[in-house]
């Protein structure tokens, strides 16, 4: 029994997965300017993983999704968040030192390179949400014991 979809769904998935991914990356990168941010953008990018899993089937996803890599990347995302929070540790935890006197990310408010550690944290949280949810859904899809 093949668990992948027909050719129309597959072709549409090929076209849509990059679009969803780019839109999710846009939400994550512009988290400090427009509505959205790490959690929302990460959950949007998870849509690509779900679409891939549903359209191409579990067997195809098994070749692509490496669970060690994904669990490692989830930890890395959390560490990016913590590292950005510790940048201003000489003054206080979660002190936005990049915004007040940092070398980068201190442009005019409203530009992409502004807001101190907020873009870095958005990236970390987005990476964490994406890898975490994809690995959870993938584990759920591999758990298939309907009989017995």
């Amino acid at each position, binding site marked *: 029994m093949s668990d992948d979809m027909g050719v129309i769904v597959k072709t549409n998935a090929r076209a849509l997965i990059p679009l969803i991914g780019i839109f999710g990356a846009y939400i994550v990168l512009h*988290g*400090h*300017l*427009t*509505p*959205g*941010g790490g*959690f929302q953008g990460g959950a949007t990018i998870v849509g690509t993983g779900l679409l891939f899993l549903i359209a191409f089937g579990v067997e195809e996803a098994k070749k692509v999704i490496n669970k060690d890599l994904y*669990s490692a990347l*989830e930890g890395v995302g*959390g560490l990016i*968040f*913590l590292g950005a*929070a510790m940048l201003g540790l000489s003054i206080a*935890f*979660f002190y*936005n030192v990049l*915004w007040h006197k940092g070398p980068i*990310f*201190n442009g005019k*408010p*409203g530009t992409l390179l*502004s*807001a*101190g*550690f*907020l873009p870095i*944290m*958005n990236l970390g*949280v987005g990476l*964490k*949400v994406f890898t*975490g*949810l994809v*690995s*959870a859904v993938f*584990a*759920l899809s*591999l*758990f298939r*014991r309907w009989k017995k």
Partner: protein
Amino acid sequence: MKRALAFLSLVVIFAALLMALSPEYGIKFGLGGEDWKKYRYTDDYYIKHGVEEVGGMNIVTDIVFDYRGYDTLGEATVLFTAIAGAVALLRPWRREKHE
């Protein structure tokens, strides 16, 4: 009997909550004017000082990542624990691997 009591207590709790939500006794909805300054002074501060203190135009991101970063840290920890628990529980059982 037990079910009837449980339903009765649900009705009592619901009535009390409705009472607390009514504008005469409890909280108000659609605050504005003087009430805004009186009950929402924290929001007022964030809106006025958020851009200059944190730098992001998105006030919600300013609050959740800078002013109240610990909360987001805990949220990320909750997500991490949920994923770890789900993946750990969904692993194949030891007996099934050999079959």
